[in-house]
């Protein structure tokens, strides 16, 4: 087909859809409508290298501005899509103008979950999702002496590591009993609790922030449920994100913690796909639906849709992978460990180089590797091939997992 493709959202998923279509020889019009002012950029470095002062806005751009024109990708920044007219196959923009589509790709991403406590609107309470938020944080960190991070997820922990690298006194407040609890095993949570403690991060687990304390018209600290007040120059809130589903909902499309799509990433309207962080899709490795927030998910979704649009329609079936870097520890995850009930550790926690194999019964769900890329890559291949491993094979360092994966 060569009907116009319109992509709502200029994040990694939206960008990858456009660039994949062109690289696969798609000749029709491609339009990207994004509501941020920047050309599409990478988000992963914003909570890593960017905060350590190793980055600049240009270095996180996915491509330079002139790339889009030279590849006939019509990129519109700072434009918000307000409605979808499914009968007319048009989207309406915030200035009332309309853009027609043959196929519409919703890559609307997420927005920050707002901290619901008194004082949350004070200056000095910051979030970290966009380049502009990263610029604000990177500009304030060097002059700050103490920081409180609310939320022990990937973003919160990466911010804490960056702050400690700059010598800033750092406290993490997490409402659950362990960090990254949604995504990793207890063994990995515990390792990173210790790793941050070794870097003098103060932990406040199992408690939540009840109030942002004001000092001279700004945030000066937080009060937690125990009554303790922790002073800080900056409060960074990293308590998760919510999918941007309103546009789809207004258009009458089904939403269930994300825009509902089938295994081909199509909504119930055959002219509309949804991909990346905003899409809720069938979980082929388990039950129910999945909505993942990751580069791998965004990029592989985009390629799946681009393939379909050039006539190569295959169901989505990629193995999820993720990574995070905190201090000298690089955590690489393959598969999803939710629902695991037993684990095997390979390598050495003491030496900071190990993998945790997470099983439900005797079925391998996922593998978490810290500074063990070899295990991670073997795990990706094993999971993609639908191969499991025995507990003995995982535990025995003499067993070559990579050879098993390639067998």
């Amino acid at each position: 087909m060569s009907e116009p493709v319109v992509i709502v959202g200029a994040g990694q998923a939206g960008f990858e859809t456009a660039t994949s279509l062109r690289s696969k020889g798609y000749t029709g019009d491609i339009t990207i409508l994004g509501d941020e002012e920047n050309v599409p950029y990478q988000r992963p470095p914003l909570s890593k290298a960017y905060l350590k002062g190793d980055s600049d806005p240009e270095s996180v751009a996915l491509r330079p501005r002139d790339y889009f024109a030279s590849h006939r990708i019509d990129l519109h920044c700072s434009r918000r899509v307000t409605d979808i007219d499914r009968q007319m196959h048009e989207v309406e923009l915030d200035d009332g103008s309309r853009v027609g589509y043959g196929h519409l790709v919703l890559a609307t991403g997420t927005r920050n979950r707002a901290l619901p406590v008194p004082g949350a609107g004070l200056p000095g309470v910051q979030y970290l999702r966009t380049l502009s938020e990263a610029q604000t944080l990177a500009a304030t960190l060097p002059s700050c002496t103490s920081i409180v991070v609310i939320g022990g997820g990937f973003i919160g922990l990466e911010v804490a590591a960056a702050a400690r690298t700059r010598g800033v006194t750092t406290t993490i407040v997490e409402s659950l009993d362990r960090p990254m609890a949604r995504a990793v095993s207890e063994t990995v949570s515990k390792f990173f609790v210790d790793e941050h403690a070794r870097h003098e991060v103060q932990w406040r687990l199992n408690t939540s922030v009840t109030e942002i304390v004001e000092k001279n018209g700004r945030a000066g600290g937080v009060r937690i449920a125990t009554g303790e007040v922790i002073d800080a120059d900056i409060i960074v809130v990293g308590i998760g994100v919510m999918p941007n589903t309103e546009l789809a909902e207004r258009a009458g499309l089904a939403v269930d913690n994300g825009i509902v799509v089938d295994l081909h990433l199509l909504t119930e309207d055959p002219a509309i796909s949804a991909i990346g962080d905003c899409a809720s899709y069938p979980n082929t490795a388990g039950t129910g639906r999945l909505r993942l927030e990751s580069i791998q998910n965004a990029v592989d979704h985009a390629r799946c849709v681009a393939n379909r649009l050039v006539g190569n329609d295959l169901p989505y079936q990629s193995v999820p992978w993720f990574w995070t870097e905190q201090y000298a520890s690089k955590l690489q995850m393959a598969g999803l460990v939710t629902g695991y009930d037993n684990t095997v550790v390979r390598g050495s926690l003491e030496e900071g180089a190990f993998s945790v194999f997470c099983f439900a019964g005797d079925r391998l769900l996922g593998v978490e590797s810290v500074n063990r890329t070899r295990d991670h890559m073997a795990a990706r291949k094993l999971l993609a091939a639908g191969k499991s491993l025995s507990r003995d094979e995982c535990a025995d360092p003499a067993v070559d997992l990579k050879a098993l994966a390639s067998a």
Partner: protein
Amino acid sequence: MPSLTYVHPDGTKQSVEVPAGKRIMQAAIGAGIDGIVAECGGQAMCATCHVYIDSAWADRLPPVSDEEDEMLDDTVCERTAESRLSCQIPVTDDLDGLIVHLPETQV
């Protein structure tokens, strides 16, 4: 400023002046050169910035780390003795004139 030349599989060449310190991958992305995807942004997670660099330059390049070595086993185009991940190589003045061969595909 060092000059790098990227050679596409069809033989077309694109030369770019690159400030020292940038990675070979970043230089290609910054110049909008097709043929390098770099979906993970240079974190050695994806093997989609695979390039071939003539062995004559080998002693001027940083050694292949264990991490890069593992990722290179997962490239879409065949790994050869000249394979590198371009995100792992910072451009230095020593690399002025470097020829970087791009593979047929990265994904």
